[in-house]
């Protein structure tokens, strides 16, 4: 672990990534301490102001401090990303293992399901879901979970298949080792790394998806300060002031940079093939 951090520090982009991710996590966790204003307190007299010392990123149409909303929005983004990705990961791992290790027909069914889910355009699926249960934070989570399970599931299945065909695993199986033992002892340690990287690189995508849903009016409930809702407000206010869109874009870009570079750096680190060659 320590070595890992040391290695990341050796890679400038990885270091930047680590820094940005840490910055995001810290500012989200400490939002209530850092934020100069209540993110949902209205101050209509001061609405649509540009940046100033009083309001670092200006104010929105309700006079709410955008800097504070961005900070609290980080909490929302992190919450959505962590919850939905971890649920999707768990389900994806289980289904992927079943597909890889189970009987052929089960594998086929699961793969068919994965492909079916993948074949819906996300927005269409989101629209139907939102119409069904109404827009809210948990709806966003459900949409993300369902649409990202196939990605993880496929990775795990491929790994499982390749491990299953390994000679030593076949030998262990012949000696009567339980499937559970093989999966937990041999498979899990092997997939955790790639999955972790995949997940960390997925976080920005998830956050961007939330922004898109908010734009279509299908995101979190007001007055929850999410980056997507800040962007959406900004879209509607663009002819009055550019600041809400800028305020909404900055964290999105920074977080994307952070998680992507960190993820790539981790991949270079974990993927032995790559490390050996360079």
């Amino acid at each position: 672990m320590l070595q890992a951090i040391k290695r990341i520090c050796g890679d400038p982009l990885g270091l930047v990534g680590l820094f940005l991710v840490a910055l995001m996590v810290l500012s989200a966790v400490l939002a209530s301490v850092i934020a100069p204003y209540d993110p949902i307190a209205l101050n209509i007299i001061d609405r649509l102001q540009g940046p100033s010392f009083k309001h670092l990123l200006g104010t929105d149409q309700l006079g709410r401090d955008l800097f504070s909303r961005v900070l609290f929005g980080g909490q929302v983004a992190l919450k959505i990303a962590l919850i939905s990705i971890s649920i999707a990961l768990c389900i994806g791992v289980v289904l992927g293992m079943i597909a890889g290790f189970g009987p052929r027909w089960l594998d086929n069914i699961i793969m068919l399901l994965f492909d079916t889910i993948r074949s819906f355009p996300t927005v269409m699926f989101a629209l139907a879901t939102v119409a069904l249960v109404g827009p809210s934070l948990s709806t966003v989570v459900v949409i993300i979970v369902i649409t990202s399970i196939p990605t993880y599931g496929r990775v795990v299945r491929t790994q499982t298949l390749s491990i299953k065909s390994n000679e030593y695993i076949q030998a262990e199986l012949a000696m009567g080792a339980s499937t559970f033992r093989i999966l937990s002892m041999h498979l899990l340690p092997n997939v955790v790394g790639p999955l972790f990287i995949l997940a960390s690189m997925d976080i920005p995508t998830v956050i961007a998806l939330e922004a898109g849903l908010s734009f279509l009016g299908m995101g979190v409930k007001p007055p929850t300060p999410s980056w997507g809702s800040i962007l959406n407000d900004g879209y509607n206010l663009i002819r009055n002031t550019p600041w809400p869109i800028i305020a909404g874009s900055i964290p999105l870009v920074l977080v994307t940079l952070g998680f992507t570079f960190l993820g790539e750096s981790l991949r270079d680190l974990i993927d032995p093939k790559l490390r050996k060659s360079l």
Partner: protein
Amino acid sequence: MLIYCIKRIGLGILIVMLAVTLLFFMIHLVPGDPARILLGPRATPELIASMSQQLGLDKPLPIQILMFFANLFRGDMGMDVITNRPVADIVFGQLPYTLSLILTAIIGAALIGIPLGCYSAINRNSLADRVTGILSVACITAPAFVVALYSLLIFAVYLKWFPAVGAGEKGDFGDQVAHLVLPAFAIGLSWVGYLSRLVRASMLEVMGENHIRTARAYGLPERLVVFRYALKLAVLPTVTVIGVGMGFLLSAAVFTEIVFARPGLGKLIFDSISTRNYPVVMGSVLVSTILFVISTTISDLINAWLDPRIRASL
């Protein structure tokens, strides 16, 4: 290879049917009475009932979906009750706009993204690599609607280089292309970033592999090694991603079609779901999943052709 093709196509058809059936049940669970929405506020209950009947909504759901497939088998996608036109006409009327948008976006993104990725991989850890890295990653999550809005403001309003809305005059190719540039840019930008990162990563991986190192050891020119061997292999994952990407682009198309007031399949789906225009929803969903399945199938076939190991796995 032939058996693989047949299997893959059969699977595709199965996926389409499953997807359409799932969505059918989903939208019918959704609150909102299509007959009422279609008829507007002044409709009487009798009118609504008669419209429901026209829409076939008075029948149980399984019957409705079976009827849908039965009609489809005869080449009939149903009628849109509002405009009294065949759904097929409506959907295929909108399809070219979205197809041209998506293809322009993806080809444009590939033309810029792949060379960028190569360059970054060859000049790994150079300043240029870092800068393109930061720029392309920053592009990845740029929400399509924000890019769309800003490109409109900059290129259509201030610079007046491109027209703002619509899809151009029918029959005027130049005009249609001019109308395509900004929307394609809006949904393609994130793919430039995505593809360049992907190509960079897979290039680095490939260049570490034995035969490339062997090629190098034989003293083949670096240029030849990169373009002849490494790039060819590195493009493999890119092909897969582009195949899957069609689905994402279709989603992104919804945003750009709204912001650019462009006709297209994405907007048709969005509008018809919000108005609960079920025949049009079913028709457009059918076509869009077929589109997606075709593109993934093609990319799978290309992959199988390039890499025989994949053929064995199905």
